[in-house]
């Protein structure tokens, strides 16, 4: 099920899970499908656009996983293997439908320099405290919890993620929604730790900015 702390399963858990799947444990399969559903849906939609087609891609992915389970040798983690199948199915589907495949972190991770916070928020060089906040950021710990957890706030977070450049969107989805470690994301996307961190940093900074616009207005 969805782990509130977003902890990735440990290797021992993964072995137990693999055994359970091979034994035909329906609950283990459902738990796995549920755990990764949100991230899979987002990643697939980056390629195929519509939610309906993304759901078909997810279905094809799990069938591919089940068919390949007996051949899975554990050279990569089970999770990485499953998401590689998802990526292949999504790309195949996008090609078939003549959609432009988003250039993802797999092909390019560099984007132009982009500060986390608008430079105008800080005192300019020559000021008494150059680089210091001109106005202190708002205190979010005083916001009512029901506002933070509202459906409307969720929609704003969702919308902010959707407007991110593909590579940033991929990294934040895996790290902060599906709970992958930095190392797992680097392995899966074939990017360096430094690149991964830059993409995550820009993605989180943009989402924070969008949330600030919404929560403080």
């Amino acid at each position, binding site marked *: 099920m969805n782990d509130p702390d977003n902890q990735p399963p440990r290797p021992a858990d993964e072995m137990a899970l693999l055994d359970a799947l091979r034994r035909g444990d329906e609950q283990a399969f*459902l738990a796995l499908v549920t755990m990764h559903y949100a991230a899979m849906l987002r990643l697939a939609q980056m390629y195929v656009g519509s939610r309906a087609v993304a759901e078909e891609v997810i279905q094809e992915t799990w069938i591919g996983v089940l068919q390949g389970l007996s051949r899975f040798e554990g050279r990569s983690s089970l999770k990485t293997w499953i998401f590689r199948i998802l990526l292949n199915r999504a790309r195949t589907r996008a090609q078939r439908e003549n959609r432009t495949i988003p250039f993802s972190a797999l092909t390019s991770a560099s984007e132009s320099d982009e500060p986390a916070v608008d430079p105008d928020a*800080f005192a300019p060089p020559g000021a008494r405290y150059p680089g210091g906040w001109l106005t202190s*950021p708002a205190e*979010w710990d005083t916001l009512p919890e029901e506002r933070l957890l509202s459906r409307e706030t*969720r929609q704003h977070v969702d919308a902010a993620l959707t407007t991110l450049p593909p590579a940033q969107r991929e990294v934040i989805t895996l790290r902060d929604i599906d709970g992958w470690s930095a190392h797992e994301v680097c392995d899966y996307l074939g990017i360096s730790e430094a690149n991964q961190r830059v993409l995550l940093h820009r993605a989180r900074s943009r989402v924070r900015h969008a949330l600030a616009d919404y929560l403080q207005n």
Partner: protein
Amino acid sequence: MAERELTCQELVELITSYLDDALTSEERQLLEHHLTYCHGCRAYLEQMRVTLRLVGRLSTEDIPDDLRDELLAAFHNLRKSADGA
């Protein structure tokens, strides 16, 4: 801590590395020292933590019933054919 101090503008660029525990010990000390006296950066760090919590909440998404049923059917069919082989 004689060498130099971080500015707020520098600190916000180190937040992700800080939360990932990927700073050098010197950088970490500089950042944590800054936080002891800078109210604005403490508020910013809190905003970032709230952001992560809210993004994390997107991990809960209901699977449509028909998709769930089709996946379970596929699970049992493939298992049956594997047993029969």
